[in-house]
C-alpha cells in the first residue's frame, strides 16, 4: 500500500458514509421492511422452566379471525421426516456437545422459560399475539435446576438420556502447575453474573418463499449470514443455493445477534408452509428471555508466586452456567475463560479446567469479550489480593509479571479438547501500562487510596489485558468496476453497526487510489459472494479488510493485463495511475479506466490466516464509594490500548468507549436474575439496568498503533472488544482499594449498591 497518494484514506478520522442515511431516518432495519401480502408471526414461549408437554390445544386460536396458521412441534415433525431439527453448533461441534443441541421448537419437554412452543401467524402482530393467548397449554411441571450447583448434583436431568447435566470439561494447561511448590499461594472463589448484549434493535426476520422456484429469501441476517444459511438449508432440506440471507441495517450484535436461533427456522418454515411472506420482530421481553445470555460463571482460582511476586502458576476450576442447551457458539466462553486466564502475563505453569453445566435457564452464547471479561475479573482481583498479602504495590506486581517485547510471541496454555494452541503476536505491553498510569495520574492520586473524603471512600484500581481478534479461517472480497468508473466492493464481513462500510471504503480507496466517493461497499448478504465468514471475534476489518487488499491487487492486475492488450505492450510495462487509469510506462499513452477494461470487470480476493491478533492494553479507575448507600461513583476511567494499525481513529475510539461502557454495565448494573423455579425476574428494561447517559460521564480511551500485527497486510488488530475486557477487574479493584479499611473484598459482580452495602455491613459485624 502506498500511504502517500492523494487518496490515502487509511488512518484518517473519516466521517462515516453510513451516517448520511442513518441520521435522516433512511436506514432500513428488518422491521422497516414491508411487502405485499406480508403476515406477522408471534411465538408462544414456555411459562415454566422445566416440564413435560402433555397437550397443546390450538383449535380456538386457529379459529380466530385474521389467524393464518398455528404451528407446533407436531406440524414441524410432519414436514421434516418425523424429527425436529436442532440448532447446529457453529463453533467446535464436538460429539459431546451435539447431544445437547436445542430443537427449533420444544418437543415433548420444555427446558427454560421462553423456549418456543408454538408459532402463530396472523394478519397483524397484535392478532398473532392475541392468538397466543387462546392456545391451551398443558405442561406437567418438573423440578427445575436454576443454578449450577443444583444442576451438578445430576439428580434432576435436563436430558434424561444423557445421564449428566455437564456436557464437557475443557482443560487449559502449560508446564506442570500441579507440582509447583510456591512460597505464597492464595485460592479464591469468584463469580461473574449472567448478563447479555441487549442490542437496542431486537432481532427480527422477514422470510419470503418463492414457491415456483422453491427459493427462500430471509432478511434480517447478521454476523454470520453464510453459516446461518448453511444451517437453515440443512434444517429445511433445501439446497444451499436456494436460500439467500440478506443483511439489513443492523442495530448492534455484540456477539448475540445473528447466530442461528429457533426463530431462524420457525419463521421461514411458516413462510414456506403458508406460501406468504412472514415477518417476526422480537419484542423486548422476548429479547431478554430468548436471545443468548452470557457470562455466568463461578470460578475457584489459585495463584502461586514467589515472595517477590513473580508468578509461578495459575490453577483453577470454572463452572460455566450454559442454560438449557448448547447453542451455536456456546463453547467459546468456557474455552476462553480457561485459555486466556493468564492474559498478558508471564505464567509458566497453568492448569485450568472449565466445565459446562446445564441449567433450566436461557441458553448462553458469546457476548463482547466472551470469557475474557470474566477471566480478567478473576485474575486481576486475585492479583490485587496477592499483592496486598505480599506487601507489593499492585502496579509493581503487574510490572514484574507483564510480558516483555523480547518474549513475543508468547504461548498461551494449550486447550483441549480438541487441542488448540495459541500465542500473542506483537507489542510492548509495558508501554500501555505506563501510559495508562500517567494518564490517570496514578502517582498523585495513589495518596487517595482508601481515604474517606466528604463521606466517600476513594480508591484506584489498575489492570492489564489482551484482546483476541482476527479469527480465521479466511475471508473473501470481490471488486467490480461499474460503468461510471466507480468500484463496488463486496465483502464477507458483516456490518453490525460498527462502521464497516466506512472502514472498508477507506481500505479500498487507498488500495485502488480512488476517491472514497467512487467506492461502494456491499457486505454480509449471501447473494454477494460465494463464501463469507462474517463479523465476530473482532475479525471484520482484519480479515475482510485484508481480503479487499488481495482483491484490489488482483483487480489492478486485471486492469494491467487488459490495458496491455489495448496498448500493445507487456503487462509489466503498464502503470496504474489515478482513477485506475493505465498508462504505458515512461510517458506513454494513458487509458482511462473505461477505455482499458470491459464493463463489469471484477476481481476476487481471499485472505486466509489462522493467526489471531492480540491487541493489548491497560485500564485504570478512580472511584468514590458512599459506604452508607453502597453507591459507587466512577470519577475517572482511562483505557490505553494498542490495536495495531488504526484504519479510522474516529470509529476505533467509538468502539473503545462503547466497549468500556458495556463493561461498566456488566460490572455495576446489569444482572439477569432468576428465582429458584427458573423464572427470569428481569425481563424488562425497568429491571434489566442498562447504562444511561447520566451514569458514566468520565471515560477516556487512548488508542496506540505502535505494534502492527505481523499476521496481516493491514497490520491491523481486532479492536472492538478490548474496552470491555478489563472493566470488571479494574473497577472491583478500585472498590476494594477504597474500602480497604473496612475489610471489604468484592468477589462477585455486579457491584450493585445493595451488594456493596451488604459486604460493608457483614464486615462490620
Amino acid at each position: 500500500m502506498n500511504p502517500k497518494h492523494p487518496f490515502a484514506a487509511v488512518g484518517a478520522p473519516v466521517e462515516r458514509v453510513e451516517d448520511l442515511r442513518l441520521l435522516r431516518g433512511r436506514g432500513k432495519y428488518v422491521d422497516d421492511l414491508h411487502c405485499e401480502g406480508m403476515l406477522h408471526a408471534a411465538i408462544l414461549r414456555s411459562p415454566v422452566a422445566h416440564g413435560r408437554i402433555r397437550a397443546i390445544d390450538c383449535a380456538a386460536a386457529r379459529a380466530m379471525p385474521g389467524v393464518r396458521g398455528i404451528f407446533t412441534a407436531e406440524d414441524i415433525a410432519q414436514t421434516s421426516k418425523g424429527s425436529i431439527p436442532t440448532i447446529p453448533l457453529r463453533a467446535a461441534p464436538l460429539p459431546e456437545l451435539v447431544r445437547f443441541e436445542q430443537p427449533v421448537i420444544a418437543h415433548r419437554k420444555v427446558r427454560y422459560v421462553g423456549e418456543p412452543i408454538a408459532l402463530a401467524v396472523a394478519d397483524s402482530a397484535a392478532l398473532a399475539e392475541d392468538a397466543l393467548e387462546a392456545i391451551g397449554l398443558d405442561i406437567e411441571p418438573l423440578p427445575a435446576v436454576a443454578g449450577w450447583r443444583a444442576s451438578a448434583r445430576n439428580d434432576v436431568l435436563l436430558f434424561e438420556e444423557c445421564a449428566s447435566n455437564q456436557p464437557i470439561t475443557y482443560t487449559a494447561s502449560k508446564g506442570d502447575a500441579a507440582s509447583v511448590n510456591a512460597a505464597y499461594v492464595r485460592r479464591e472463589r469468584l463469580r461473574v453474573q449472567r448478563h447479555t448484549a441487549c442490542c437496542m434493535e431486537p432481532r427480527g426476520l422477514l422470510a419470503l418463499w418463492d414457491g415456483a422456484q422453491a427459493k427462500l429469501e430471509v432478511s434480517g441476517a447478521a454476523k454470520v449470514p453464510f453459516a446461518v444459511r448453511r444451517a437453515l438449508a440443512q434444517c429445511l432440506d433445501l439446497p444451499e443455493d436456494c436460500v439467500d440471507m440478506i443483511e439489513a441495517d443492523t442495530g448492534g450484535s455484540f456477539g448475540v445477534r445473528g447466530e442461528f436461533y429457533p426463530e431462524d427456522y420457525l419463521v421461514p418454515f411458516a413462510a414456506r408452509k403458508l406460501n406468504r411472506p412472514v415477518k417476526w420482530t422480537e419484542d423486548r421481553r422476548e429479547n431478554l428471555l430468548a436471545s443468548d445470555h452470557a457470562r455466568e460463571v463461578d470460578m475457584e482460582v489459585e495463584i502461586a508466586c514467589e515472595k517477590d511476586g513473580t508468578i509461578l502458576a495459575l490453577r483453577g476450576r470454572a463452572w460455566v452456567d450454559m442454560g438449557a442447551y448448547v447453542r451455536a457458539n456456546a463453547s467459546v466462553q468456557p474455552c476462553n475463560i480457561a485459555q486466556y486466564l493468564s492474559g498478558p502475563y508471564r505464567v509458566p505453569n497453568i492448569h485450568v479446567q472449565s466445565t459446562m453445566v446445564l441449567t433450566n435457564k436461557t441458553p448462553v452464547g458469546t457476548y463482547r469479550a466472551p470469557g475474557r471479561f470474566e477471566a480478567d475479573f478473576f485474575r486481576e482481583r486475585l492479583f490485587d489480593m496477592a499483592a496486598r498479602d505480599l506487601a507489593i504495590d499492585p502496579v509493581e506486581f503487574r510490572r514484574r509479571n507483564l510480558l516483555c517485547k523480547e518474549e513475543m510471541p508468547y504461548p498461551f496454555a494449550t486447550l483441549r479438547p480438541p487441542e488448540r494452541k495459541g500465542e500473542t503476536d506483537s507489542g510492548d505491553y509495558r508501554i500501555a501500562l505506563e501510559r495508562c498510569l500517567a494518564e490517570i495520574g496514578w502517582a498523585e492520586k495513589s495518596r487517595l487510596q482508601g481515604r474517606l473524603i466528604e463521606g466517600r471512600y476513594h480508591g484506584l484500581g489498575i489492570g492489564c489485558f489482551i484482546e483476541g481478534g482476527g479469527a480465521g479461517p479466511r475471508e473473501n472480497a470481490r471488486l467490480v468496476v461499474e460503468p461510471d468508473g466507480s468500484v463496488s466492493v463486496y465483502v464477507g464481513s458483516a456490518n453490525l453497526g460498527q462502521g464497516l462500510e466506512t472502514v472498508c471504503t477507506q481500505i479500498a480507496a487507498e488500495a485502488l487510489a480512488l476517491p472514497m466517493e467512487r467506492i461502494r461497499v456491499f457486505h454480509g448478504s449471501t447473494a454477494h459472494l460465494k463464501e463469507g465468514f462474517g463479523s465476530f471475534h473482532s475479525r471484520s476489518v482484519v480479515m475482510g479488510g485484508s481480503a479487499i487488499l488481495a482483491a484490489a491487487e488482483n483487480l489492478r492486475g486485471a486492469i494491467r493485463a487488459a490495458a496491455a492488450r489495448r496498448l500493445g505492450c507487456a503487462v509489466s510495462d503498464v502503470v496504474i495511475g489515478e482513477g485506475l487509469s493505465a498508462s504505458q510506462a515512461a510517458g506513454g499513452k494513458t487509458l482511462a479506466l473505461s477505455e482499458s477494461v470491459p464493463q463489469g470487470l471484477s476481481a476476487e480476493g481471499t485472505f486466509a490466516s489462522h493467526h489471531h491478533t492480540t491487541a493489548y492494553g491497560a485500564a485504570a479507575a478512580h472511584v468514590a464509594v458512599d459506604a452508607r448507600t453502597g453507591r459507587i461513583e466512577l470519577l475517572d476511567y482511562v483505557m490505553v490500548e494498542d490495536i495495531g494499525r488504526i484504519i479510522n481513529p474516529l470509529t476505533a475510539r467509538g468502539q473503545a468507549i462503547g466497549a468500556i461502557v458495556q463493561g461498566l454495565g456488566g460490572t455495576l448494573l446489569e444482572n439477569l436474575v432468576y428465582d429458584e423455579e427458573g423464572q427470569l425476574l428481569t425481563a424488562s428494561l425497568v429491571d434489566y439496568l442498562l447504562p444511561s447517559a447520566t451514569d458514566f460521564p468520565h471515560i477516556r480511551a487512548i488508542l496506540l498503533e505502535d505494534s502492527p500485527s505481523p499476521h496481516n497486510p493491514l497490520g491491523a488488530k481486532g479492536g472492538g472488544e478490548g474496552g470491555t475486557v478489563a472493566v470488571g477487574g479494574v473497577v472491583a479493584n478500585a472498590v476494594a482499594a477504597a474500602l480497604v479499611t473496612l475489610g471489604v473484598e468484592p468477589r462477585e459482580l455486579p457491584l450493585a449498591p445493595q451488594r456493596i452495602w451488604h459486604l460493608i455491613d457483614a464486615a462490620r459485624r
Partner: protein
Amino acid sequence: MKLPAFAYACPETLEEAVALLAAGAGTAKALSGGQSLLPTMAFRLVAPSLLVDLRKLPGLDRISLGEDGVRLGAKVRWRDIERDARLASAHPLLARAVAHVAHYQIRNRGTVGGNLAHADPAAEMPGVAVTCDAELALTGSKGTRVVRAADFFLGPLSTVLADDELIVEVRLPAWPPGRRWGFEEFALRRGDFALAGVAAYYDPDAEGIARNAHIGVIGACHRAHRLARAEAALNGRAADEQAILASAEVAAAEVDPPTDLHASAAYRRALVQTLLERALLRAAS
C-alpha cells in the same frame, strides 16, 4: 408486546367520563398520561375493555395557588410543575420531589392524577401527598368526595378509588414561610423508581424547637406513609445533629420494607435511615 384490544372513548365532560367508567363496571380504565397504564397493558398484565381518555376534559390542567395552599388539577403534568416558577417558594418540597420523576419524555406526558391513581409505592407524588396531609378530590357517579391522601392508598397499585371515580384535584395545604424541609431518594439510575425515599419537614418555633414534624417514606414501604415515631422523636427538640440522628434511627426501625431483587429489606431500612439523616441535616442547615 402489542396492546390487547379495547374500546376507546374520548368524552368531553367529566360527567360523561364518569358515566362511561360506571357503565364499564370495573373493566373500564381512565387514560390520563398513559405513562404507567400503557406499559402495563403492553405486558398484557391488564386488559381493560374500555379506555376512557381524559384528554378533552376541561379545567383539570391548572395549578392554582391560594391562601389554602396549592391545588393541582389531575391532568397537571410533571413538566407543568417543573416549569411553574411560583412553586419554588409556594411548595419547594413538591418542586424538589417532582424533579426526580422519570425522564424528559415521560415528564411531558405523565400526570399527577394518573400517578396517584396508579399508586406505585416508590413514586414521589404519593409520598409528597401523604407527607403533606394533602386531600384528593374524587368525582364519581355519586358526586365528589374528598379523601385524605393517607387514607387513599391501600397498598401497592391499590387505592380507595371506586370503579366510576376519577381523581380531579390534589390539594396541598399552604406552605408556611420558615418551614424547614428536605427530600432525598435513592434510585439505581437517574429517573428510576426509588429503592427508598423520604420527604420531611418541620416548623421551628421561635426558640428553634422543631414542631409539626412530618416525615413520609416511599419505596421502602407497601404504600407511602408517614412515620409517626420518627416524627415524635423530632418534635419538641432542637433539630440538632443528635435529634436528627435519633429520628433517623427510629425511622429505620419503624419502616416495614419489602425485599425484592434490587434491595433487601435490611438494605432499604438502612437507606431510610441514611436518607432521613441527610434530608433533615439539609433541612436544618
